[in-house]
């Protein structure tokens, strides 16, 4: 190798082909790398992956379960992608999800007597406002006081988690069972089940509609254009007459609101009460999804589905082969890290040149 050295140079324009190829290649490489822990777990990776994909997609029941997982993931992915578009680094989707679920559950528990067509939209609004309000705090702190939102949104997750826990272990503790969960929500606020005998609920439709709305916002509206401009260059956006501070706060509220809808879905579509373990980390997976999806609405939908398959399929692989379920997190993390390598290659060209 003597006589050569490796140079890294910035591409003048990010390669369009690579921008599409990078996530796909990263996912494939990540699955190849994840074969190492699977085989260390004593399972042939091919058998393992067969169980994973079959378990997530193989029959009607497993497919509906994958969609039930897809819904909160898609909402969190869109929530994070929208905030990241204008460089508001919201890693607080988890807390916003809990806040949305809490507020919506408070409404839904007390909504007896309202017919479903009234109760469900109001519950969605309640959840959206709950999540949005929780995201507004770090956004206002950022634009007014320049407090870094990475830390405040992250810490906010834990403040909200303990707040929910205090409420559910305290005033809301179920008097009959003693479980830390809210009373059951009113019948009329149950999300309709769209595939009988499954958990394929109305929230899946809500999440797809939100993804479509995200597409329209980004591609067709002035607000979307402004968010993209702020993400590109905040200073020149300000010079162009965009009120950067106001748009960031607005984006944070909408982002938190969408994450809040994920909380609504878990309450009204899956559990029918507010619970302390409403989310196994959907908000954090939302960051993985937003990045893998390239902050692009279509990409985010595909990435959410992939993550739903990984999470749901790993449970199936666990049941079939005994591989520990923690593998789902391992695969998610590796996918994200591989993607970061992929992003590097879309921005830089690595060459061997004669020394």
């Amino acid at each position, binding site marked *: 190798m003597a006589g050569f050295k490796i140079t890294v140079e*910035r591409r003048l324009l990010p390669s369009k082909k690579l921008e599409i190829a990078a996530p796909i290649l990263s996912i494939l490489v990540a699955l190849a790398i994840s074969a190492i*822990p699977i085989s*260390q*777990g*004593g399972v042939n990776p091919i058998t393992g992956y067969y169980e994973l994909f079959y378990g997530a997609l193989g029959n009607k029941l497993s497919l509906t379960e994958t969609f039930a997982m897809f819904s909160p993931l898609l909402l969190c992915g869109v929530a994070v992608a929208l905030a990241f578009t204008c460089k508001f*680094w919201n*890693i607080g989707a988890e807390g916003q999800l809990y806040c949305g679920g809490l507020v919506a559950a408070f409404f839904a528990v007390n909504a007896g007597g309202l017919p479903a067509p009234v109760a469900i939209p109001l519950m969605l609004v309640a959840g959206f406002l709950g999540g949005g309000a929780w995201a507004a705090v770090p956004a206002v*702190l950022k634009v007014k*006081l*320049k*407090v*870094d939102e*990475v*830390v*405040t949104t*992250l*810490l*906010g997750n*834990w*403040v909200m988690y*303990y*707040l929910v*826990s*205090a409420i559910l*272990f*305290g005033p809301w503790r179920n008097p009959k069972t003693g479980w830390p969960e809210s009373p059951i929500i009113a019948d009329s606020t149950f999300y309709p089940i769209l595939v009988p005998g499954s958990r394929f609920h109305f929230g899946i439709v809500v999440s797809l509609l939100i993804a479509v709305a995200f597409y329209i916002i980004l591609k067709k509206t002035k607000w979307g254009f402004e968010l993209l401009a702020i993400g590109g260059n905040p200073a020149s956006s300000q010079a162009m007459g965009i009120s950067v501070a106001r748009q960031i706060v607005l984006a944070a509220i909408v982002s938190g609101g969408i994450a809040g809808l994920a909380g609504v879905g878990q309450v009204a579509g899956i559990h029918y009460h507010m619970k302390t373990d409403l989310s196994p*980390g959907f908000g*954090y*997976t939302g*960051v*993985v999804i937003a*990045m893998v999806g390239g902050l692009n609405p279509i990409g985010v939908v595909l990435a959410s589905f992939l993550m739903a398959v990984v999470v749901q399929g790993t449970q199936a692989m666990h049941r079939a082969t005994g591989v*520990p379920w*923690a*593998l*789902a*997190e*391992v*695969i*998610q*993390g*590796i996918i*994200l*890290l591989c993607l*970061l*390598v992929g*992003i*590097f290659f879309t921005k830089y060209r690595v060459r061997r040149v004669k020394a």
Partner: protein
Amino acid sequence: MTSPTELVMITSILAMAFRMAAPLIYGTIGEAFAERCGVLNLGIEGMMLMGASAGFLVGYGTGDLWLGVGAAAVVGMMLGLVMAFFTVTLGAQQHVAGLGMTIACTGLSFYIYRISIVDVGGVPPHVKPFGTIPIPYLSDIPVLGDVIFNQHALIYIGIILVPLAAFILFKTRFGLSIRAVGENPSAADTAGINVFRIRYLCLAIAGGLSAVGGAWLSLSQSGMFLPGLTQGRGWVCIALVVFCNWSPLRILGGALLFGGIDALQLTMQGIGWRVPYQLFLMMPYVLTIIALVAVARRARAPAALLSSYKRED
């Protein structure tokens, strides 16, 4: 005057505050090194868990707890280097890379534990954790003796680390380089400091210390490993480093404050008071956000925090 039982209780709470502070001291000093050189290490939660897991497995397998601590440190340093590869060499966004590290390591810590240890059902496997080592004479001092001088070895080391870290950061050439890189990497580069090497070194230190903080939980505190054993302590460290203004000497006080809140909460639950203990657990995060707002007007964070450095040549 306090009655003897109250005195015993106060002593026990203070001693417990030190034990609750121990993992925070390690993790936060590590995080201070990372952030001082300009890298926010959100991988810390995962690195602590990997330290707890690796430390336990080696300690359990060999029967030598110190080998476990050593293994945790090595694993942590390697993870720190991986974090450095992403944030320094590839220039990836630090919070995204850190979150990726935490997600992968959280899963991996339990995955490795699970495939290494055959599930026999019933009581999870455990080791006899590190005991306390009374320091001759000093441990006989009333109250203080039991609080400070009758503690676990890792606590003594942690307390010594505090002035050592302050000395390294503020009195050595290496420390000056770290701070220069964290404030203005291109100026540091011009001055002949190898920005990449400093950041790699700091992240190795950060990873190693965080992992030892995690190993404290499995080897000193509980004697076993459980998934999610850290219960978010990595994030408390992220809060604490900000709360303590990136200053190692303040970290001891801050960790004792946060550890003390935890000890108080555990004691009150222990004697059967029905307190909403979650409000205590929430305190570190709330206090940090308040502190961030209070110091916002005179921002003190290392100026280059969160920005990657590329030499344009």
